[in-house]
């Protein structure tokens, strides 16, 4: 966003307004674009909605009370699918995947099947399960992708819960001690920052540079890469937007930042997401919205291999999030 846009096209933050959002597909059509699958290189496995935190921006409404979690039969079906599909990356998420008793078995099973295994961590769940999991992570070179929304304690705790900032710093220090995020260790530690409110994320490259400087200076922390993602107006974040009177303004902001150049690189084109009960989606956000891949409820056990390139991707208004600014990849 250039500065002229900053001062001429802001979105009032206080007032709740009604807004008619042009359907995402219509916006694509206006730009002569279509959203279809490319060759799939990433399998995302969502182990369930159980989480030790109740983050206010969570698109899945994950939390301590959720019972929807993957069982061993489904996990076996997912592993068999990975075996017959030859993905480059396997991306394990939740909820907090560390809370699943099946996580070590899953990592052991899929590690030989893909060159790269990633795990999305909220850090506080890892802190509680560090002893049980860290050897498995290390031996399979699991890439840890850790949520770390802000360098500021108030912003972090406001989004993720009281005391989370301090716990996150402690866990990052432990991970550094083990070798994660340290140069030459082969153990990759990446951070994810996301806005702590109804605004868009900062520039990824500049933020990565600033985080490297400040984390090193204040806490002697190092990491590999940083990703800057926008919050998706689904689940608990959507409820917060509505309740706080920010929904219309946020949607307007996403729509006005639509970037046609971002569409080609959207993650949904190259990723298949599997829910805790084994059904397939184009992405984790469509999973949150029950938009099944191809509009059909297909169980992973029925899938012969990766989705066919050229298949249309299910789209809805939340897709504006990933196509805003530099995109969501």
């Amino acid at each position, binding site marked *: 966003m250039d*500065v002229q846009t900053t*001062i001429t096209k802001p979105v*009032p933050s206080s007032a709740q307004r009604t807004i008619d959002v042009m359907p995402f597909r219509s916006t694509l059509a206006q730009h002569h674009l279509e959203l279809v699958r490319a060759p799939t290189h990433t399998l995302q496995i969502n182990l369930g909605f159980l989480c030790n935190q109740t983050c206010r921006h969570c698109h899945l409404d994950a939390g301590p009370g959720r019972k929807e979690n993957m069982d061993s039969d489904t996990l076996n079906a997912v592993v068999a699918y990975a075996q017959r599909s030859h993905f480059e990356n396997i991306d394990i998420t939740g909820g907090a995947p560390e809370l699943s008793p099946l996580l070590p078995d899953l990592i052991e099973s899929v590690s030989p099947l893909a060159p790269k295994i990633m795990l999305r961590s909220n850090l506080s769940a890892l802190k509680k399960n560090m002893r049980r999991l860290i050897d498995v992570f290390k031996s399979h070179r699991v890439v840890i992708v850790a949520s770390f929304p802000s360098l500021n304690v108030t912003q972090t705790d406001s989004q993720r819960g009281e005391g989370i900032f301090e716990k996150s710093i402690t866990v990052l220090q432990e991970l550094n001690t083990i070798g994660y995020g340290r140069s030459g260790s082969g153990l990759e530690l990446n951070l994810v920052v996301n806005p702590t409110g109804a605004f868009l994320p*900062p520039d990824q490259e500049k933020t990565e540079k600033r985080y490297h400087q400040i984390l090193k200076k204040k806490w002697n922390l190092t990491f590999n890469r940083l990703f800057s993602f926008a919050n998706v107006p689904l689940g608990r974040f959507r409820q917060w937007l509505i309740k706080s009177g920010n929904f219309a303004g946020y949607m307007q902001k996403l729509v006005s930042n639509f970037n046609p150049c971002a569409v080609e690189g959207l993650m949904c084109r190259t990723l298949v997401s599997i829910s805790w009960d084994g059904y397939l989606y184009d992405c984790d956000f469509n999973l949150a919205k029950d938009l099944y891949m191809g509009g059909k409820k297909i169980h992973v056990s029925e899938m012969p291999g990766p989705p066919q390139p050229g298949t249309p991707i299910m789209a809805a208004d939340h897709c504006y999030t990933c196509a805003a600014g530099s995109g969501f990849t």
Partner: protein
Amino acid sequence: METYYKPEDLPKFEEIGEEAPQLAHKFFEYYNAVFADGELTEREKALIALAVAHAVQCPYCIDAYTQACLEKGSNMAEMTEAVHVVTAIRGGASLVHGVQMRNIGRKLSM
């Protein structure tokens, strides 16, 4: 209630170019150049703009640069400190004029 300042007026700022397009073009071109990354980052410049917005008491600018600061990765603590900086300068500017008062007062006094 009717008010001179309306949030929905802010997006109309660019309409200022309708009567004098060349001047508006020059202004916005300069404006964008000023706020681009240079020796100072865009984030730092947005913090300065936010502070100045408080000094000139422009509600449009406060709205726009509060959002800009957040979107460039600043947090509320940094933004509050920036407002204190401009407040200190503004207060200091009043207070330092006390020297003039003292000079004049001493000249006039026995």
